[in-house]
């Protein structure tokens, strides 16, 4: 194994950026193995899957795995936990690191037992020689074992040898969670801890013009009032005292507000904005285009959608001896630390950021912002930890929403019912304004300070993954195709990454339009999709879901019940997912059942994949049927669950998921493949049931009535 220091070889996944083996793994003398993931648990079950990967490659029992909390003091920098990349980037790194650790242990065992490597086998960390004699990892391990750069020259096991990967493993965290054990950052309770609350402005650009600070400071339990420009926070001894002080501030503070929000919540306001246009797909075949017999056009929209984590954001921070320690449910502790260091104008090495779980996040919510809030309040009370708990209203009004989008489609069919031309234009803001440390500060409080920071320029993640244009390029095969991304730069409403980014609206539009075209071609929607697809894996998920759902060619709804299909390959490079849903339209639209087929390549934890897929489908059903952020010209009007109803237990569908496992192929990201296909399948099912086509999310009773009128 040699490594050229001058030109480091590209290593698999995030091993490439975190190249030392001991950054990822430690073999402990007490019979345990510690893995150091840089990816974090956000409710997706990733830690269980990562533990499975290490257990598999090391040949140790799953129970021996310890996972160190992700911490900037020692964890590998894996950037963000986002975009369904934790298995492909973090898991692959651990897979190679563990395979190499096993090899190094076997080398030591061979020397110790005086045999060749070929004579050794491993069972749960005990290395045995064919000729007799054995020694355990726990006896072989020393601190220097993994103190070296990874070579990645030891191939992970072939699928045929897997016993842990591909077998359902119970989640590591569920027993603790159902027992009520403290597990979330919300539960952190440090000695001497104080409680902080923020008195946010009533609207985005409001300016604080009056606040009787003495009155607030005189309230029971109030330890500190932090006022810096338009940033106002209070610290109290007891949590309810902080809340009472917050209520008082809200009552007595006076603010000057602006009217800067869009005139309408209808996403079509985007069509009038200045855009930066980019043609992202352009295919021409004039001979084919000349066969056009029928042309269709349609326009689809998605409103602003809230992540609406069930637990509002929370963070704890302590300022002591010129150093900060921050506990946060951020999806990216290193990028967050960069932005915190920018605001504090201090060396980032003096800030330790430690991840603890929060409520499920589904993308960029208030987690990072709450971390800065806690830091700013902790600065006022050196030595005392401060726990900042956002209110429900804070989370709803200040989180960055999933952007509103408009997708316009126009396509031509030939006389045989084949799509021969496809034109698509999408309007959207960027889908990422996460902390980055590049060109500005992407943390809410930083914009409110007396010396405010500018936000960093938004990033639209580039294709093939894409941001607003994620899944904008159809994976179907059309001879003529032009897709234009019209990026809207002005962001009157705060937006960022919401699960699936632009794929949610783009796939909703593409897959709805496929059904409209199938209708115009007189074709069955399942058959029509297959007609335009060559990729065998794409075809397989559609065929499988049709078979599992008992799809009948050309089946029609009965005026109230109907079924529809939706399909996509997430990011055009991650998992394949097809879904069929059954809706019932009564007073409201109800999704009763859903069938899904998913191909995510090599599956690490089948039950974890099913759980994520069910969850994605149910959450998408909620987005599709119910959700839209409301605002007027000056204020966000969505502040609690009454303003923003989500799918409840009486409305949730029954979901059956079928996995098409491909153990011989690489694993594919699978946490976000459900949103677009599910939304489209619901719209298609409504059309199948009632003959009306809903092109604007959410699909409410009012929209059904309007379509019927």
């Amino acid at each position: 194994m040699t490594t050229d220091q001058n030109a480091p070889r590209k290593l698999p996944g995030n091993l490439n950026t975190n190249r030392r083996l001991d950054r990822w793994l430690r073999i402990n003398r007490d019979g345990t193995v510690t893995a150091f993931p840089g990816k974090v648990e956000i409710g997706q079950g990733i830690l269980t899957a990562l533990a499975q990967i290490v257990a598999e490659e090391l040949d140790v029992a799953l129970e021996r795995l310890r996972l160190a909390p992700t911490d900037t003091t020692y964890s590998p920098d894996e950037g963000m936990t986002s975009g369904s990349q934790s298995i492909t980037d973090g898991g692959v790194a651990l897979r190679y690191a563990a395979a190499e650790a096993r090899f190094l242990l076997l080398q030591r065992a061979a020397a110790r037992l005086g045999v060749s490597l070929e004579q050794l086998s491993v069972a749960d960390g005990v290395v045995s020689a064919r000729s007799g004699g054995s020694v355990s990892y726990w006896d072989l391990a020393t601190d220097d074992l993994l103190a070296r750069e990874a070579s990645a020259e030891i191939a992970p096991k072939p699928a045929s040898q897997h016993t842990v990967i591909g077998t359902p493993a119970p989640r590591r965290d569920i027993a603790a969670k159902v027992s009520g054990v403290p597990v979330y950052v919300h539960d952190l309770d440090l000695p001497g801890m104080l409680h902080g609350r923020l008195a946010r402005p009533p609207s985005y650009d409001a300016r604080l013009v009056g606040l009787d600070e003495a009155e607030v400071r005189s309230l029971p339990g109030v330890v500190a009032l932090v006022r810096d420009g338009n940033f106002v926070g209070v610290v109290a001894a007891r949590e309810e005292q902080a809340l009472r002080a917050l209520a008082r501030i809200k009552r007595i503070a006076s603010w000057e507000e602006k009217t800067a929000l869009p005139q309408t919540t209808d996403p079509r306001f985007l069509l009038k904005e200045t855009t930066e246009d980019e043609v992202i797909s352009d295919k021409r075949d004039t001979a084919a285009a000349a066969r056009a017999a029928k042309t269709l056009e349609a326009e689809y929209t998605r409103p602003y959608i809230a992540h609406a984590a069930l637990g509002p954001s929370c963070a704890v921070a302590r300022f002591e001896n010129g150093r900060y320690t921050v506990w946060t449910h951020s999806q990216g502790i290193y990028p967050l630390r960069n932005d915190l260091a920018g605001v504090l104008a201090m060396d980032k090495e003096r800030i330790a950021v430690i991840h603890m779980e929060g409520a499920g996040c589904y993308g960029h919510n208030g987690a990072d912002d709450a971390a800065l809030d806690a830091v700013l309040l902790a600065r006022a009370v050196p030595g005392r930890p401060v726990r900042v708990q956002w209110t429900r209203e804070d989370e709803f009004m200040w989180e960055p929403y999933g952007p509103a989008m408009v997708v316009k489609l126009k396509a031509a069919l030939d006389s045989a019912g084949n799509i021969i031309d496809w034109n698509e234009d999408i309007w959207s803001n960027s889908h990422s304004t996460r902390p980055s440390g590049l060109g500005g500060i992407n943390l809410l409080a930083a914009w409110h300070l007396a010396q405010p920071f500018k936000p960093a320029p938004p990033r639209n993640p580039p294709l093939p993954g894409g941001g607003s244009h994620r899944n904008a390029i159809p994976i179907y095969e059309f001879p003529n195709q032009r897709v234009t991304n019209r990026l809207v730069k002005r962001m009157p409403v705060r937006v960022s990454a919401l699960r699936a980014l632009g794929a949610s609206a783009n796939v909703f539009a593409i897959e709805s339009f496929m059904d409209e075209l199938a209708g115009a071609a007189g074709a069955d929607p399942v058959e029509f999709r297959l007609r335009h697809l060559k990729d065998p894996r794409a075809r397989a998920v559609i065929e499988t879901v049709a078979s599992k759902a008992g799809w009948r060619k050309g089946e029609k709804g009965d005026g109230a019940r109907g079924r529809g299909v939706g399909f996509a390959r997430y990011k055009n490079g991650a998992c394949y997912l097809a879904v069929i849903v059954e809706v019932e339209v009564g007073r409201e639209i109800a999704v009763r059942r859903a069938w899904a087929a998913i191909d995510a390549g090599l599956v690490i934890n089948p039950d974890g994949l099913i759980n994520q897929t069910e969850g994605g489908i149910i959450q998408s059903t909620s987005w599709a049927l119910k959700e839209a952020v409301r605002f007027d010209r000056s204020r966000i009007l969505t502040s609690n669950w009454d303003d923003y109803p989500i799918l409840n237990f009486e409305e949730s569908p029954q979901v059956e998921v079928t996995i098409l496992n491909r153990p011989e192929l690489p694993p594919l990201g699978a946490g976000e493949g459900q949103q677009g296909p599910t939304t489209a399948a619901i719209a298609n099912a409504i059309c199948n049931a009632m003959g009306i086509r809903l092109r604007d999310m959410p699909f409410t009773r009012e929209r059904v009535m309007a379509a019927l009128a």
Partner: protein
Amino acid sequence: MTITIHVNGTGHAVAAEPETPLLYVLRNDLKLKGARFGCGLGQCGACTVLVDGKPVQSCDFPLSAAAGKSVTTVEGLAADGKLHPLQRAFIAEQAAQCGYCVTGIIMTAKALLDANPRPSDAEIRAALKGNLCRCGTHQRILRAIRRASEAGAKA
């Protein structure tokens, strides 16, 4: 002011204002973190505990109203070192994603099964109307409650 409440069978004298939401007393004074803050408005159910056997949203329930009553939190469900059948059923069905809502849901379900040991699917769904789950784990949660019911969760 000192108010005495009985939580999971033990009496506690708590020095707090009478209108303090029970949730903060449980979490901060008694260090019972199983009931969780979700909205502070009684809309989501993450903070559900039982007061004299009835489910209440503790974020919206004043300490004074719990005085002299018997409060049960999720930490009080295990008996003889064994998790409650509902908790075991949630593990068996792997009925959580982020898990933030599950303790409140388990408490709601306990009240349901205590009153109605063999509820129908519709009755379970109706009982959970005040509990939100954002991850979309509804189907597994419903399955877990049915499993506990079938195992005879009345305890």
